[in-house]
Structures are given as structure tokens and as C-alpha cells.
């Protein structure tokens, strides 16, 4: 018995946009107008969305910083690297176990530093006289305590300002130790405009310092890497289960449930499968250029997408045995998924959702909602670029502004010994002619209905306004947004950390998600907000017992 809500009627999308903008100072309104799009997509025309631009100071953004993207997102889930934050204590503290990246370190002798937070805890004297000495000492103390195979250093804001050369310190330590790969990330929080810059910096350094370090052959058939999967709430475990069932060998995951050696051996795979295009497409490109491994976009969020992605992988390997096995797995998994979806659909059909999260999830999760008959009214990313909205074909047209220019682009060339195109040109061509798409991503917009909203870098004010105007049945974003939305009486699902739930990827994940959404949109909770006496507040002269 959900509370009856008044739905928005008679609001033209253009009026909604005007409503969102009208309180802003003119300069703010002009800028936001370019980031708020009404989807008029019909056929090939997709509107241009301004994305990956600076957040306006004072406008309460959902975004975080470059350090968060680098240390928190990309390197956070790798369990056997000692990650040392070089800076005052806060950055290391806040990125300590807060992202729900699960890891399986149950193997005998496995290293797992994820429950630890390492920091140089810079003090004022380090800011004044430089922090390099303290950093060098901290690296040595970590090495002597743990003897890890790798130590990574992460710069915080003041490090860049005072000019500590963290790369030189790392290099020296690496040379001294001999058996520990020490490398650093210049991921100061002020760089770029969001977490996205941090992903790029992380990708570059991992590629430079780790990928290709282990040339030992890896056993298994149909070797793939999964890129942009972070094992939040166990997503990666579910994907691994399915891949294994299909007989596909996952070599490396960037970076959910990952180890140093996975990155080091990633160049031994024959195909790269990209989940979160935004955070990791750089590595996919570099692996192709240097080692000749092609990449495809996959999506394991949503049962149909999972099936589609598996078929795509099988098609790439062009192997009858694999194709049959994939079909058998899909046939085995789908009945349960379909049954739950059909049941939930009877209660969820026609309900509405809004998704403002990440660089891929606001797109991928629309599919899961669609599978239970729910409609997405508005969606947008927190830190994506135009290609994530409009598709990769716009990449050549994206203007590189000052904020992107200062993020290093590394030059990668074909490895003289190890470059090995995984398929002959003719075979690749044949696949493409059959409709198989490499390095392809159409972005979010083509999958959204006409008249829906696409809003980049949504802020607190606009989020509350959208909820007030549309009264969606569910709103999806992150922890900072969760409770202001719920105070409005609308259930809110975190799609960064999944609240306490998950996995939501793959077949079992889809089932979990349908049930979770059923719980949220059909909950009685939201009907308790008014006390019985509030419906009839006037006291009458007669009391019931008279």
C-alpha cells in the first residue's frame, strides 16, 4: 500500500527545463542550460550535451575529485598493492573501505591490504620543507613491515603545490628494494573537473608500470580481460561465475577483486571487454595499440545485456563449442530470471525512475528497470564525457579544454616483440561486416525515450526540483543524495555502492535487483509520514466517548 502520489501532469519538457533554471543567477543558468537536454532523439539526431566541464563554485555538486577517481575507484579494489596516500590524513581516511569493493583473498598465503589505510599524514613542517623525505621513509617502513610486491603512491592537493617529486622518490625506492614495484600517481584533487581525470591518470600509470610485467603464459581457453568492473557488492563474483560456467577464462579484471599479477599479465588476453566505458577505455585502447588485443563494449547489467554480451564474446572467438556452451548457460539461467521479472513486473510496470550516477551506470541500469516495465524519466552522469552520452563517434569533435589538457596523455606504440594482432585483418573485417562492432559505444542517449531528460553533473537543487515536479517512484544516485531525496518521501537507491545490496550484475544479480526495486517502490514505509490526526487536525467539540 504505497502512498498515493500526485503525478506531474501538463508539464511540457521545455517548461520543466525553465523551472530548473529560473532560480539561478544568469551566468549559472546559461551554463546549466547547455548541460540539461530534452531528448529529441529521433533516428540519428542526438542532441549535444555539454559534459566534463567545471562544476560551478557554490553549486552543490555530486562530484568528487581526481584523487577519489584514482585511488578510490581504480586502485582501491586491488588487494595486494600497498596504497600509500601522500598527504594530510583526510584523503587516505575517507577512501578507506568506503566503496564496498569486495575481494576474495581466501587463498592460502594471499595478500590483502584493502582493510588497511596507509598515509604519510603530512604535517605543517612537511608542507613548508617538503614531504619527499617523509614519503621515502614511509615507503621504506611499509616495505620493511610487509614486503609487498608493489607499493603505489597517491598525491593529494598540497603535494602538487609544494612540488614533491613523488615519481623520483618511487623510482629510487624501487631500485633500492629490487623486489618491489614502487610507482606513483600525480592525482592531486584539483586536477581535471571530476573523478574522471583520476581514472585517466590511474589508467596511464598502471599501463606504464604494471601491464606487461609478467610474460608467463596463462592457462585457459578464450582468454579475456574485463575492464571497468569494480566488484561493488560482489558484481564481479557473479560475472566470474557466469564466465567460468561458459568456459571463458577471465585473466584480469580492472579492477574489481584484482591482484597485481592480473594487471601484469593482462597483455596475455585475446579480447578486452569494457564494462564502464568512461573509467577505463584508455587502457583498452592502449592494450590494443601496444599488444594488438581488440576491445569490445559489453554490459553485464541486465539479464538481456548479459546474454547479449556473452554471445558477443562467443562470436568474437568464432568457436562452435563456445557458442553452444554460451547458449546452454543462457538457457539454463534465464528461466529463473524471467520468472522473477514477470512476477515483479506485475507490481512495478509503469512506475518511473531517475538515474544520476557515474559514467556508465546511469545508462546500464535503465535496462534493468526496463526489464520490469519501469520507465526512465531522466538520467545523467556525474563525471562522464560527451562520448558516454552521444556515442564514441563524437570523440573527434570534443574540444579539449584547459582542464583536460593538463591530464597526461601517454604515447603508446606497438611493442616490438609482443605486439600480436589477435585476429588476421580479414577475419576482423568479416566480423565487422557481419555487424560485429569493435571499439564501439553508442552512449546513453539513443537508448532513452523522446521527451526524457538528460542532465550532466546534476546538483542538489535540480535533483530536489526534479523529484518535486515528477514524483518518480524511485531515484538513483549516491550516498550524498540519498537522504535529501528520501526526506521527500521518494525511495532512493544508491547505484555507486548499492546501499547494502548486490550483486546486481549478471543473471543472479538481475534477480537481486528486481527484488530490491520491488521492495523499494512497493514499500509501505512511505505511507507512514503523516500521523492519523494530521488528516483531520481540527478538534471538534464532541469527543468519541461522549
Amino acid at each position, binding site marked *: 500500500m504505497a502512498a498515493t502520489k500526485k503525478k506531474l501532469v501538463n508539464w511540457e519538457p521545455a517548461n520543466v527545463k525553465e523551472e530548473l533554471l529560473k532560480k539561478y543567477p544568469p551566468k549559472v543558468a546559461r551554463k546549466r542550460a547547455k548541460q540539461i537536454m530534452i531528448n529529441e532523439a529521433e533516428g540519428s539526431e542526438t542532441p549535444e550535451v555539454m559534459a566534463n566541464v567545471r562544476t560551478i563554485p*557554490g*553549486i552543490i555538486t555530486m562530484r568528487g575529485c581526481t584523487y577519489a577517481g584514482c585511488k578510490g575507484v581504480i586502485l582501491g579494489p586491488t588487494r595486494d598493492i600497498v596504497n600509500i596516500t601522500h598527504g594530510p*590524513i583526510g584523503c587516505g581516511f575517507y577512501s*578507506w573501505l568506503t566503496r564496498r569493493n569486495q575481494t576474495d583473498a581466501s587463498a592460502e598465503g594471499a595478500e590483502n591490504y584493502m582493510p588497511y589505510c596507509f598515509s*604519510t599524514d603530512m604535517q605543517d613542517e612537511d608542507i613548508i620543507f617538503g614531504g619527499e623525505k*617523509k614519503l621515502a621513509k614511509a615507503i621504506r617502513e611499509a616495505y620493511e*613491515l610487509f614486503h609487498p610486491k608493489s607499493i603505489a603512491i597517491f598525491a*593529494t592537493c598540497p603535494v602538487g*603545490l609544494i612540488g614533491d617529486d613523488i615519481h623520483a622518490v618511487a623510482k629510487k625506492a624501487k631500485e633500492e628494494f629490487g623486489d618491489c614495484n614502487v610507482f606513483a600517481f600525480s592525482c592531486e584533487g584539483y586536477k581535471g573537473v571530476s573523478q574522471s581525470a583520476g581514472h585517466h591518470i590511474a589508467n596511464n600509470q598502471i599501463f606504464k608500470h604494471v601491464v606487461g610485467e609478467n610474460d608467463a603464459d596463462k592457462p585457459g581457453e578464450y582468454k579475456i580481460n574485463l575492464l571497468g568492473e569494480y566488484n561493488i557488492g560482489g558484481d564481479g563474483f557473479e560475472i566470474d561465475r557466469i564466465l567460468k560456467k561458459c568456459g571463458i577464462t577471465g585473466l584480469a579484471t580492472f579492477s574489481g577483486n584484482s591482484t597485481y599479477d592480473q594487471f601484469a599479465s593482462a597483455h596475455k588476453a585475446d579480447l578486452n571487454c569494457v564494462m564502464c566505458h568512461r573509467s577505463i577505455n584508455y587502457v583498452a585502447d592502449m592494450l590494443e595499440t601496444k599488444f594488438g588485443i581488440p576491445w569490445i563494449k559489453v554490459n553485464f547489467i541486465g539479464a538481456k545485456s548479459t546474454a547479449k554480451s556473452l554471445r558477443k564474446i562467443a562470436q568474437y572467438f568464432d568457436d562452435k563449442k563456445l557458442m553452444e556452451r554460451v547458449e546452454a548457460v543462457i538457457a539454463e539461467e534465464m528461466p529463473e530470471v524471467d520468472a522473477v521479472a514477470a512476477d515483479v513486473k506485475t507490481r512495478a510496470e509503469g512506475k518511473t525512475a531517475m538515474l544520476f550516477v557515474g559514467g556508465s551506470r546511469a545508462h546500464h541500469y535503465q535496462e534493468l528497470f526496463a526489464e520490469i516495465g519501469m520507465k526512465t524519466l531522466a538520467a545523467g552522469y556525474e563525471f562522464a564525457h560527451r562520448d558516454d552520452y552521444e556515442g564514441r563517434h563524437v570523440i573527434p569533435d570534443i574540444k579539449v579544454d584547459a582542464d583536460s589538457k593538463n591530464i597526461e596523455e601517454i604515447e603508446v606504440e606497438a611493442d616490438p616483440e609482443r605486439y600480436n594482432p589477435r585476429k588476421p585483418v580479414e577475419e576482423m573485417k568479416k566480423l565487422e561486416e557481419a555487424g560485429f562492432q569493435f571499439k564501439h559505444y553508442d552512449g546513453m542517449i539513443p537508448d532513452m525515450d523522446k521527451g526524457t531528460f538528460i542532465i550532466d553533473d546534476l546538483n542538489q537543487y535540480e535533483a530536489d526540483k526534479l523529484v518535486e515536479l515528477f514524483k518518480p517512484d524511485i531515484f538513483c544516485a549516491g550516498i550524498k543524495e540519498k537522504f535529501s531525496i528520501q526526506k521527500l518521501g521518494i525511495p532512493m537507491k544508491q547505484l555507486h555502492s548499492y546501499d547494502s545490496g548486490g550483486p546486481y550484475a549478471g543473471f543472479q544479480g538481475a534477480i537481486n535487483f528486481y527484488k530490491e526495486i520491488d521492495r523499494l517502490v512497493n514499500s509501505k514505509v512511505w505511507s507512514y509520514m503523516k500521523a492519523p490526526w494530521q488528516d483531520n487536525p481540527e478538534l471538534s467539540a464532541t469527543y468519541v466517548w461522549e
Partner: protein
Amino acid sequence: MLLRHTPKEITERSALTINPAKTCQPIGAMYAALGIHGCLPHSHGSQGCCAYHRSALTRHYKEPIAAATSSFTEGASVFGGQANLLQAIQNIFTVYEPDVIAVHTTCLSETIGDDLNQIRDKAQKEGKIPEGKHVIGANTPSYVGSHVTGFSNMVKAMAAAFATRTGHKNGKVNVIPGWVEPSDMEEIKRLAAMVGVPIILFPDTSGVLNAPLTGEYKMFPDGGVTVPELISSGDSLGTLALGEWCSADAARWLDANCKVPCMILDMPFGLKATDRFIDALRTVGGVSVPEEVMKERGQMVDFISDMHQYFYHKKVALAGDPDQLIAMVEFLVTLDMIPAYVVTGTPGKAFERRIKELTKDVPYECQVKAKGDMFLLHQWIKNDPVDLLIGNTYLKYIARDEDIPLLRWGFPILDRVGHQYFPTAGYKGGLRLLEKMLDLFLSRRDRDDPEQTFELVY
């Protein structure tokens, strides 16, 4: 094991902090500023700082945390953040309409050397601060002190920005509660009202960070100390500052600048600290303590005497913040328990001295370290185990590995609720602490006792 790499053998570390028992200044400033009614905290730095602080506070309170940021880019980091802050002030007053913007700095803006006062004056001159609205600021460099220092700096900034001495005493007592939960602030107000002393409590996050669900989102909930109250704090009879680390600076500022005399007390956790608080309150207020307060105290003493056998000589390891730990250690000693290991990440030799003083008659060589970390605490435990852990959620990794019960108390608590609603301050709060500790000890016995000695009655 979760913390499988922590060795028993303790080696000297001088550069590497592992598993910190503190975080940075700005989050304390943000929490304090949320205790002013109609105030939007503002983080002058990269937007990541603000995102991290909001996330941490949201996870702790399960409440919306509204706060804005100057969103520094590389350009601002080179040329200074003045333009960003000016723009932010204008946007905030236009879009969110708070009464007060409480700006705190970050390591970034501090390293650059941005001058908050100068930027505020410029905003004022340029008409970016509407009539009757306020912008206050506190310097909170992350590389000095800890989150506790940031809290203290913002509380002092509140006094400095608003407190005004008119020469006419207002008949009230300022109470600066320190970094305690909204429920504790509510409890302090309830106790003062029972004793019959009118107080100005600042900051006051009750009603802000434990707000009801009504179907309406108020960016500025009903709670918080009001600006007129803060102004009036300069005319109060006196100030009771609860906690040297959190509250003393503001109290001393009021003493020096507004001639409001102050007393620095411990936070009112446990029997004796609460006794001293009530005693100070009745003295400065010139009233006698009413029977109902005596009754609450008597209930607490009754509980202690009834259940003393279960507390006696139990060893405890604690991690947290100085003011809270001082009060808690005293409380444990009061119960004849043994606060064996005490760690705070916040620097301060005075803390170590105070803990040593409090534990000097305890029949155990108690270890204490300021500027310590949970890695060290864990190593101490590995060398000689304890019966109970007290501290924030991060201790649950030690609790699980070493199979020791954990009393969640402090900041942040990310995996339980209750601290928003149920105080641990005062006598009633003390009862709750006792009940929780006792439950942990006895649940353990119910789990571990062999069948032959398993008992119905405790």
C-alpha cells in the same frame, strides 16, 4: 583474517601512519557549522574534500548533509581561490538562501595562502552578501591537528563572528558541548532545563542531524543555535566549555573578548564528569539541583552497584578523540575496569598526561598514545588481549580478527544507528553505556560458556 599483515612485534614507525585514529580538520568544521540554524557549510578547496566530508557525515548520521564547495581547478590552485569563493557566495545566497555561510579552508587553500577575511570583505563590498546574511570563516589546514581541531576552530569562529558584548547580561550560561552527537546535545539541554539554568548551546546539531521524515526536505532543518543566540553569547553570565580539545578555545575567546568568564570541564560522559557538569551548572546558575536529577543519578549508581561484578577488572582498548576518551577512561576507572590501551590520532602530550593521571591507580600498566593509530592499538592487543574494544566502526576489523566485543562509540559509526537518537552523555546516557557494555559481556558468556555452567540468571 582481515588484518592478516599486522605483526605482533612492534617496530618504530616515524613516517607511515597505518589505520588512523583521526581524520582531517575540515570535516570537524563542517560538522560544527551544521549546528548553526540556517547555515550552509562551505569547503574552500577541491570539490573532493566536500564530497568526502558529506559522504562520511551522511554515512554516520543517515541524514542529508548539505554543504557547498569552491570546486578548485588547477587554475584556481595556481592563481588563488578568490574568484571561486566570490562566485560561490553569490550562487549560494541566490540558490540555497541560507542565513549563514560558514566557510572553512582545506590543505589546498591553506597552502596557497588564500585570506578568508579579505575575500569576505571583498564579497561584502561587491554586494554579494545580502542584508542580514552572514559569511563566517575558519582556518582549518588539514596538515595541523585533526578533525577535532577543525571542530574547535569553527566553534571559535562562531563566537568570534557573532558574540557581542552590550554590557547588559542576558542571565544565560553558554554551554559549548564539543563534538558530541545530536542526541547528547539534546540531553545536555534537557539536563540544563531540569536544573533550571537557561543556556545557549553552541553548536547544536540536535534537530539538524536527527530530523524526522515528513515528506518535506528542509535543507535547513528546525534545529541549530540561532544567530541572535550566538550574538547574545557575548552577554552571558559565563561559559561552560565541555572538553579542552573541542570547546576551550571558543570559551577562552569569549572570556578574553567579551568578559564572559569560563570554566573548562570534561565532556559529561560517565558518573563523575556528569557530576562535575551538573555541579558547575548549578553553581554558575545559582540554583539547587532538583530531586529529579538526583533520581537519575541514583539510578545510575544503582545500576553500577547491581552489576559491578561483570565490569570489575575487565580490560578495555579504546581509540577515539581526546575529550571523549578522557571522560570514558575516567568512567571505566570509576567502574573498576581497566582502560589498558588508549589511542588517539589527535596530537597532544597533555592528553597522554591526563590519561596517565586518571589510570595511575589502576592495577595494570596502561598504555596511551596521542598521534597514535589503530595499527599500534592492534599490536598492543596482540601482545596482551583485552575484553572489550571501544571506538568507531573501523575497530570492527580488529574485533572480528581477535574475537573481542566492540562498543561502537565515537566517530564515525558507519554500520549501526542509534547514536543520533540515544544519548550517552549525562546520567541517562551513562545508563545506556552501562547497558550496552553489560550486554556485550553477557552475550559473550551466553555464547561461550560451556553447557555445564550455562546460566539462566545473571
